[in-house]
């Protein structure tokens, strides 16, 4: 028995005496963070089932609402007269971004309450950046399922969404740009949670900004007569991402079209949010380390 233990110690020591050359890349580490997060997700089968039911019901609601909306009203505001397509693209994009942002913040709150954040901070050789990027990818990859599901169900119900391949390539480009910009907001929200331990109020305001002012269910031109709301709406990156997305998949407008360029420029102007997001996150992480609030057990 003792001999066995001794030989096993030798085996362990031999392994630890070899200094292996390390060659993992940042992206490999981020993908590992995404992969294991998905493994955890698939342990929660009920949550997946609820998401699927949620997609179907959300689209069905706007399918029935679309019968009440006059086609002329939408046309007069400069859109294709298909409210179902308008609503499906609006809610799919807003839910896509919203669930991704809130998923990151919720994930962080979970890591703090479970005590795993400290282990992550010690382990991540990229100062938590590869973990964060992995979590952002996780948020968006799982929400993609919701997004694609909503669009497919909408199309089955007759929503006039383009099937043109080029339009879809452009839509994916717009989507990626919108994701990148909003991931910065997600990282800021997550960072604020570390310090303030308050999530729901922050997420509530974000959701209001998107749903109410972002033009998810109605064109923002309807807000024109209430100037402050209209200008707040224009200042949100989501408004421009959604406008580009809709114009691409409903009207098949190219990115350089006069109706598109303003929104495109505006969205690109928000790109520094990503850099700012990581900066803010690091600042909050430092405050947490100073105050000893990385774990809440």
């Amino acid at each position, binding site marked *: 028995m003792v001999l066995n233990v001794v030989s*096993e110690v030798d085996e362990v020591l031999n392994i630890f*005496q070899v200094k292996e050359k390390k060659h993992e890349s940042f992206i*490999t580490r981020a993908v590992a963070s995404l992969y294991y997060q998905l493994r955890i997700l698939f*342990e929660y089968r009920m949550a997946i089932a609820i998401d699927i039911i949620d997609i179907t019901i959300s689209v069905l609601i706007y399918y029935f609402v679309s019968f009440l909306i006059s086609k002329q009203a939408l046309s007069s505001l400069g859109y294709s007269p298909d409210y179902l397509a308008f609503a499906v693209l609006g809610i799919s994009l807003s839910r896509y971004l919203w669930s991704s942002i809130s998923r990151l913040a919720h994930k962080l709150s979970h890591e703090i309450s479970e005590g795993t954040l400290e282990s992550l901070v*010690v*382990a991540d*050789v*990229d100062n938590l950046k590869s973990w964060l990027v992995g979590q952002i990818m996780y948020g968006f990859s799982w929400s993609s399922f919701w997004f694609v599901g909503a669009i497919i169900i909408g199309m089955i119900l007759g929503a006039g969404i383009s099937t043109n391949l080029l339009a879809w390539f452009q839509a994916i480009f717009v989507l990626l740009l919108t994701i990148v910009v909003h991931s910065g907001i997600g990282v800021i929200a997550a960072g604020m949670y570390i310090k303030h331990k308050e999530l729901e109020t922050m997420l509530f305001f974000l959701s209001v900004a998107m749903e109410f002012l972002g033009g998810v269910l109605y064109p923002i031109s309807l807000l024109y007569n209430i100037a402050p709301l209209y200008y707040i709406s224009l200042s949100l990156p989501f408004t421009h991402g959604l406008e580009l997305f809709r114009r691409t998949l409903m009207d098949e407008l190219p990115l350089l079209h006069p109706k598109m360029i303003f929104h495109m420029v505006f969205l690109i102007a928000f790109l520094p949010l990503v850099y700012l997001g990581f900066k803010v996150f690091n600042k909050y992480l430092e405050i947490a380390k100073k105050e000893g609030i990385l774990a809440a057990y």
Partner: protein
Amino acid sequence: MDYVIVSEDLTKIFKSKKKEVVAVDHISLKIKRGEFFGLLGPNGAGKTTYTKMLVTLLIPDEGEAWIDGFSILKEPVEVRKRVGWMMGETGGRALYWRLSGYDNLMFFARLQNVPKDVAKRRINAMIKFLGLEKDIHKLVMNYSTGMRVKLMLIRALIHNPDILILDEPTLGLDVESARNVRMLLRELVDRAKKTILFTSHNMQEVEMLCDRMAVINRGKIIFLGTPRELREKVANMKVVEIRLVEDKGVLEDIIKKLEQLPVVNGILSKEVSERNIVIRVLVTDYFTAIPEITSTLREYNIESVQRMLPTLEEAFLKLAGTEPRV
């Protein structure tokens, strides 16, 4: 001298609206490369706070520390690359309960820049040694405390760091596993030239493993030296052990009688088994204490009353000024 852990006046103060608590109070410590160093202290002494600053989880309010020459304030990433950290009593929470043990290890290995094949080899060798082979693919939520402790230890070692900072690494392990872990840790120092800083409540363990040790209480170091030096420092402690063949029903009476004796300075410990009672007391001097105790307890079935050397735990309690545990 080649020091790998150096702290200078390291201080941490936790502030709340009502009060300020100095958790670590100007601790200066130097630990040599290849040294097995024990950090002892009662709960709340500041051991965990001190180690958390070393692994860059907490930013000190004053002072500085260097790990293998890298500043914990200015080069935290370099510090973390060189340190393997094992969390203490709450350690089981630092794992993903909805992942298997294997996936937990692999995930942290990847975050720590360990290639998949290398991680696999290290995991396989460690789980075999620690007896986790059978359960490694089960979800961590189904693990016992001991199994989670083993997993945490493997995680601390997975990136093959030169320095290990371990908080109670044998807590919750069964006797055989604890012995194996101690053997491995000692060998890691002796043969793989690792440096280990570990905290413990187990005095025997510290005595058995550590080259040097520090006792910390209320955030300050109150002793720094070898376990032998600690024992010598408190050699003037006079301890008497009383063994009785009695059942536990009479224990309270015996304790009361002993406490009333002027020669008894305090009760250090009491152990009760089905038909035996063993009590260790601190006395003023052996020559009057032993006959007096024997006479006071003459109505009981005394097996022996004899002078003993203080255990390291008793020495530590005396240094820390803590009331002896009874």
